[in-house]
């Protein structure tokens, strides 16, 4: 009799570790592929993984084998025309089979080894560059679809979750309840003693006994525990589905000549990060792209990142445009509004003050969050100083300088920190 076992439910994903080892080993190549992919992709297109190709020679595992040359005899099937002693020209391109390259073992020949990263793996690598703490990575990737919310108190839990106020309140109630009869008797006894002392003096038997009774009652009171395990209450948290509503994200970019490809790429990474974050929190997200030099215009993503039109810089034009669009299309009672502005900070001198004003009066009151990133290696420009003032007054305005990809995340961290405070 054969033993038949249903294994379908266990041991799934057994290769996960090996797969991860594989990715780990070729991290450098994979990273490169991912950052190439980021350049080519739209901000909202992060649903899928990515194809990665690694040269076969990098990935092959060498073993000793024969090279070309020498004498080789090979038996083949399917002879149609040959007879013994026939001499035939060598086929072009290699001396025909035999101990040939191992590289073809995977059926890929000398081509690259191509495989697909899952979305999760893709994001992992993407974030790796940004140096996110792992915890936040999983949050961003939406693996954790639920969120923890308070839900009253329970009688058991871990010490970390003890609710001190609740526990002590319970303890107090218990002490009052348990002490009440004794307290009443103590009161009586003390009154009795007072009465006795009015007529008798200290040394009488009765007084002494009364004092003893009082003493015993006091002791009894004292033995009621201050806190009992029974009193402990723990904060109860339950999982609740993530919030669902809608959000709009404004991407504002300075396209003056100084914003080169590399700067745009960093801006893009920031926008992707922001998008991912929003996507986790909201059912529906819209993205509005605004580019500006001396005047601002709403464009599609392609034009946003790739158009080469250029001129001087008047940042306020973009802010004004955003304010208009918000008024027309995104009623702030229905929409959560986020914005990120990327610039190298160079602005028309007198315009910066304008920007600060528009920001505070027309945008921030409606925005959940506004992040300004200045992508520059040099000294901060006048816009930066203007915004610094805004930042002092407005908690949901963040600004950061970005020199390299790894700086992108700190701005983001701010965003996370402020999140509870700015909840509408």
């Amino acid at each position: 009799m054969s033993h038949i076992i249903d294994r379908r439910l266990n041991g799934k994903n057994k290769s996960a570790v090996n797969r991860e080892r594989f990715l780990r080993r070729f991290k450098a190549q994979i990273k490169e592929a991912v950052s190439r992919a980021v350049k080519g992709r739209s901000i909202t297109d992060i649903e899928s993984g990515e194809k990665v190709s690694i040269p076969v020679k990098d990935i092959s595992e060498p073993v000793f084998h024969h090279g070309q040359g020498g004498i080789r005899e090979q038996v083949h099937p399917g002879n149609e025309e040959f007879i013994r002693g026939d001499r035939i020209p060598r086929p072009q391109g290699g001396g025909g089979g035999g101990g040939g390259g191992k590289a073809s073992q995977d059926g890929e020949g000398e081509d690259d080894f191509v495989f697909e990263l899952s979305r999760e793996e893709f994001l992992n690598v993407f974030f790796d560059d940004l140096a996110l703490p792992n915890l936040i990575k999983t949050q961003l990737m939406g693996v954790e679809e639920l969120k923890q919310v308070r839900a009253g108190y329970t009688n058991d839990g871990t010490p970390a979750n003890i609710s001190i106020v609740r526990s002590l309140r319970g303890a107090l109630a218990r002490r009052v309840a348990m002490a009440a009869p004794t307290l009443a008797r103590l009161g009586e006894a003390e009154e009795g003693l007072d009465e006795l002392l009015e007529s008798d003096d200290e040394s009488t038997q009765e007084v002494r006994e009364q004092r003893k009774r009082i003493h015993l009652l006091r002791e009894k009171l004292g033995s009621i525990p201050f806190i009992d395990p029974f009193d402990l209450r723990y904060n109860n948290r339950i999982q609740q589905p993530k919030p669902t509503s809608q959000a709009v994200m404004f991407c504002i970019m300075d396209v003056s000549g100084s914003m080169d490809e590399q700067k745009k790429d960093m801006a893009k990474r920031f926008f992707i990060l922001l998008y991912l974050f929003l996507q986790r929190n909201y059912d529906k997200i819209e993205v509005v792209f605004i580019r500006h030099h001396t005047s601002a215009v709403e464009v599609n993503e392609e034009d946003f990142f790739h158009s080469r039109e250029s001129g001087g810089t008047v940042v306020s034009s973009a802010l004004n445009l955003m304010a208009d669009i918000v008024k027309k299309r995104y009623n702030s009672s229905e929409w959560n509004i986020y914005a990120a502005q990327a610039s190298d900070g160079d602005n028309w001198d007198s315009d910066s003050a304008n920007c600060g004003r528009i920001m505070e009066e027309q945008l921030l009151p409606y925005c959940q969050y506004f992040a300004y990133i200045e992508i520059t290696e040099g000294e901060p420009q006048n816009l930066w100083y203007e915004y610094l003032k805004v930042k002092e007054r407005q908690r949901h305005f963040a600004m950061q300088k970005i020199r390299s990809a790894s700086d992108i995340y700190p701005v983001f961290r701010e965003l996370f920190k402020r999140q509870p405070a700015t909840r509408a």
Partner: protein
Amino acid sequence: MTPISTGSEWTFDLIDEYDREIRKIAVDEFKLDVYPNQLEVITAEQMMDAYSSVGMPVNYHHWSFGKHFVSTEKSYKRGQMGLAYEIVINSSPCIAYLMEENSMTMQALVIAHAAYGHNSFFKGNYLFRAWTDASAIIDYLVFAKSYISKCEERYGIDTVEELLDSCHALMNYGVDRYKRPQKLSLAEEQARQEEREQYLQMQVNDLWRTIPRRDKDDANREPPRFPAEPQENLLYFIEKSAPLLEPWQRELVRIVRKVAQYFYPQRQTQVMNEGWATFWHYTILNRLYDKGLVTDGFMMEFLQSHTNVVYQPPVTARWYNGINPYALGFSMYQDIKRICENPTEEDKAWFPDLAGSDWRASLEFAMKNFKDESFISQYLSPKLIREFRMFSIRDDDHEDKLEVSAIHDENGYRDIRSKLAEQYNLGSREPNIQVWSVNVRGDRSLTLRHTMHNRRPLDEGSAQEVLKHVGRLWGFDVRLESADNDGSITQRFEVKSSLELQRL
């Protein structure tokens, strides 16, 4: 008789029933001797898992298994390949995987093929009997996996991975071809492992003790040659003699060596093993049909996949990829049966003992006592050579043209037979590389020697790469010399220990 089932859906009850009927035919009727069977129903994904860790249900972690997984998954998802519908493990009980996507017909085919065909081959063939211990392999792999993961915890994943990379590069040179290994259970293995570590280390230290000799006579004497004779098992030599390896590293070398040894018989019996399993699934399922237990539809589906498996594309086909071991093996067993039952005059002349004998006994004998090389040289008949229209091409780099050295005619049968047999000789297929000498008194460098066969040189790029791995294991300079027939060196490779080995 009514058929066991009519639809294509399988159920556990049906699998059980088919297995029972197949068993009646395989074991009761045809007397196949098998290990107990364990049929495991798994998903496609699990099949890919099994596929990529060389088919073993347990194995240690390594990036190259991940690589195989990734590439298997890719071709599977693109529909470039169906998954192997059979993976079967040489263990007792013999584990055969049934993929849930399979139809009932395919499940029956896999049961007959793997659980009775391969299973009886594992149990019967002399190489498997001598070299593998079916009852202990799973245990051993459990031991290996946990030992290696402990090493990873202690010494870091990278350190362990690098060492395994180097061992894998030499895996084909980690087998004993003549010595028979001991059989050990998991308990014994663990108990002895620590003891072994200490003992080995002592031995190595002893080997490398360099106490200056006072005695003048001694100084003049030729230093003893080490190793005394060339060693074919490179990993074994490294495990025992590499001066700088830590005890745990020696254990890892040993693990890879043991796994290599376990798979060694499989590499030598591909044609025989697949042929045998295919012969039996064909025979058994036809018998099921004769008994009225399966429907015409079942047979149509079965025959279609059987035909695909045993198809041999001719050399001119675009997808020609050498001789199909399923086709060759299956035809040979069928042919042996035919020679036993209906011998022609030619058969009687070529196989006087076989012609007219009891086919079942003769087949059993052929399965048990040969490996691919000797099996072909013993049993490949002129009729099959004609059927396959075999011919032999001689490629000599001293000549400007290829030569057809033999074809499927009277003059060519023996020639083709011996040449095809030689093609399956692992010894000549893989370069013959052995440990040649160690400079014991000097720089401790290790020299390997490749003995050329038919003037065939080593592939230089890979040889240099593998040599780096050897260097990492050996810890000192390593050299590889290629010697032709008269012993003169034609190729030389060298890896200096200190510099190149820090990072491969």
